[in-house]
């Protein structure tokens, strides 16, 4: 039996544009791309040159500090571009897809009969390894480590997030195989975090895992928050985390012996007429994913959710970990006396705008306006309301700002990554870029302590 952990703190941002539970197949994308920038702290080294032909599962680049960690192509085709940014930093490796995908062949086999090293080897060569993320730091797992436990959150509580129970309804078998493979990688357990208010038909039937149910507003679905309530991260602890769709990809690798980069994406956001789910592959071109034309001038396309996603252009590509596209109207307008008006249509967790007069079920359209200017920390207690962890957020961020490594460690920097504190940034009256502050702190920790 699983127990329920009730979280009170947090916030569901009532955005308009939730995806209908209808699945479409995306039109085949012309190009696919893997973006080294999706992996914080990674220094990529190219394995291919422009013009090379690759199969699905052929390496495109690898991690300079862990060369066995390879990042592979989701399709077969020709490497048409290596897009570089400032100081020749690699931003994208773009592959032009063949009409018919040709796969690299990897070893098939039931994970329960394979050894830990064999499973590791399969994941590393096929390019599925980067789906495993490490806590602390939220970076790609290091092959040399053995994690204490592996955590999987089976629901996403972020604004307009995918419903995994719907997305993976037909994938129970592959998910189970994926879990079997993962449980070989740890001496501890594989933990599933389930939503308390759902039937959990698919995830509830999975064997060989420890389950814990969570109820409460976002970020209850964040794996970091779930770890904090099951087995909080102490100095020296290493946990791995992985998203449910990626577990299925791992399962498919062992069942079929190929890297099938299938990814179901929720198309969401108020500018869309019919928000829905589409099936495509990792790294697909945004324009192939979109099912209707949108005004890209006045809207922002986000690969991911509105709190943590990355902005992409209409001809850009999906991020590696994203299973959601959110369209948000741009907020590049002036609003006369905007700070003084009653604001009936302006959702705010503080009741300083009169939107609290309306119904609780009401959904709002929001845009990317900054709604003010950056200020020093003034209002206290607002971050604490949206962070359901035993962490003093303001004190942690201040320790990062003054670069005090001891204090960062003492105040729990190992326990959080950007997504866990993204709501603090959303509610911040002083408009401070908290996610960036935290990532800077994490980078400092990696640099100083390794």
């Amino acid at each position, binding site marked *: 039996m699983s127990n329920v952990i009730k979280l009170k703190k947090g916030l569901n941002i009532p955005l308009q544009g939730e995806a209908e539970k209808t699945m479409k197949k995306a039109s085949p994308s012309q190009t696919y791309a893997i973006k080294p920038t999706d992996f914080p702290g990674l220094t990529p080294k190219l394995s291919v040159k422009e013009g090379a032909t690759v199969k699905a599962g052929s390496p495109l680049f690898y991690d300079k500090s862990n060369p066995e960690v390879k990042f592979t192509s989701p399709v077969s085709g020709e490497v048409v571009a290596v897009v570089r940014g400032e100081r020749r930093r690699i931003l994208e490796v773009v592959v032009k897809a063949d009409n018919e995908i040709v796969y690299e062949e990897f070893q098939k086999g039931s994970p329960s009969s394979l050894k830990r090293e064999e499973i590791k080897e399969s994941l590393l060569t096929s390019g599925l390894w980067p789906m495993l993320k490490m806590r602390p730091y939220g970076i790609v797992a290091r092959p040399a480590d053995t994690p204490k436990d592996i955590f999987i959150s089976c629901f996403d509580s972020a604004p307009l997030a995918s419903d995994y129970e719907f997305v993976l309804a037909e994938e129970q078998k592959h998910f189970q195989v994926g879990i079997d493979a993962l449980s070989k990688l740890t001496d501890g357990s594989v933990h599933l975090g389930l939503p308390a208010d759902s039937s959990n038909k698919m995830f509830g039937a999975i064997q060989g895992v420890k389950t814990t149910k969570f109820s409460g507003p976002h970020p209850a679905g964040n794996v970091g928050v779930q770890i904090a309530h099951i087995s909080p991260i102490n100095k020296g602890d290493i946990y791995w985390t992985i998203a449910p769709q990626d577990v299925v990809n791992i399962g498919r690798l062992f069942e079929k012996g190929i890297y099938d980069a299938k990814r179901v994406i929720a198309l969401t956001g108020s500018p869309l007429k019919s928000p829905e789910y589409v099936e495509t592959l990792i790294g697909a071109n945004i324009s192939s994913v979109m099912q209707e034309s949108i005004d890209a001038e006045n809207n922002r396309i986000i690969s991911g959710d*509105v709190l943590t996603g990355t902005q992409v252009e209409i001809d850009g590509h999906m991020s590696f970990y994203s299973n959601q596209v959110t369209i948000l109207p741009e907020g590049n307008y002036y609003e006369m006396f905007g700070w003084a008006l009653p604001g009936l249509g302006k959702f705010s967790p503080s009741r*300083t705008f009169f939107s609290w007069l309306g119904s609780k079920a009401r959904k709002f359209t929001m845009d990317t306006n900054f709604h003010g200017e950056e200020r020093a920390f003034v209002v206290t207690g607002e971050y604490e309301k949206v962070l359901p962890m*035993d962490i003093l957020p303001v004190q942690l961020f201040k320790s990062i700002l003054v670069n005090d490594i001891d204090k960062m460690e003492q105040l729990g920097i190992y326990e959080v990554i950007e997504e866990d504190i993204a709501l603090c940034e959303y509610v911040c009256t002083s408009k401070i870029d908290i996610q960036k502050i935290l990532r800077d702190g994490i980078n400092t920790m990696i640099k100083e302590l390794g």
Partner: protein
Amino acid sequence: MKALRNWIDKQKPQFEKGGKLHMFKSVFGGFETFLFVPNHTTKIGSHVRDYTDLKRTMSMVVLALIPALLVGMYNIGYQHNLAVGATASFMETFFYGFLRVLPAIIVSYGVGLGVEFVTAQLKGHEIHEGFLVSGLLIPMVMPVNTPLWMIAVSVAFSVVFCKEVFGGTGMNIWNPALVARAFLFFAYPSQMSGESVWVSLGGEKAIDAFSGATPLAKAAEAVTTGTLDLGNFSPMDAFLGFIPGSIGETSTLAILIGAVILIWTGIGSWKIMVSTVLGASFVGILMNLFGSNPYMTDMPFWYHFIIGGFAFGAVFMATDPVSAAQTEKGKWYYGFIIGVLAVIIRVMNPAYPEGMMLAILLMNTFAPLIDHGVVSGNIKRRLKRAKA
């Protein structure tokens, strides 16, 4: 609206670097963002941000102050009528007070914003909103007869030495409004206390039986005279605000309305307000039970909440997030000790009839220490967990 926007866009280049009015860039920016929420969009991190910003927060606090200010204005007229034995209509009474208070507010905002504009320009940053609230708080904690030049001096002192030298809004250690009040209290004691400063006579002659002493000062006299006499005021008068006192602090009812606004909007910390009342009740009840003089034993402890500046301090001063304790647990200790100290200073130290101001300033000083304790607790919990 469109025309105004276009006009501003046209003027803007003059204030940019190299423009001939560049020296007024901060002032221009201040007015521009006052008129229009800027068109900035999110660049990194979260793509949506809450609509609330510091301007909204501060204007909500100003809104919460309005009931106390209006009742305060009316009360000035009311006290004036009592003092000179006149009768006047409701509107005449209010208007008398309004005219007495308005110049103080104008001087306070004028001087304070002037200093803010100059420092913002010197430091090359934007104009911050902190003074929107301080500018109204300062006249509201002054006696009505405070000369305007004194308000000007105290505002200038507090904005420069209590705020700007520490780095501006969000960086100060003490509450600027209280520092302004304390500055005048210690620099010009005779103009800031006694019986003649609380009631505006407006050049007319007071009737014979009139005394301008506040109930708080009368209560303090009990220590020497041996009998408690609060003057001609019922507790209901004190609750509604019809007693002599500083401009905005007399009406507990109006302050409670402000408290509801602050708590409902999520701006003011209810923890601090509640714990301050708890702290004062704790000491007040102890004194009621075991006191050694009539002030302690004869005055029910809850009188402390309705006389003097206790309610105003607890709701609007102690809750200032910048100078208060910043941790949620720390807020409980912080408020509780303020309540305890306020009553102790009031009752035990007849030289300072009003204990609230000193209690809050003292705890502003110690708030970082309280937070340090709470933070250490968090760290210890984490270390213990790691060892287990």
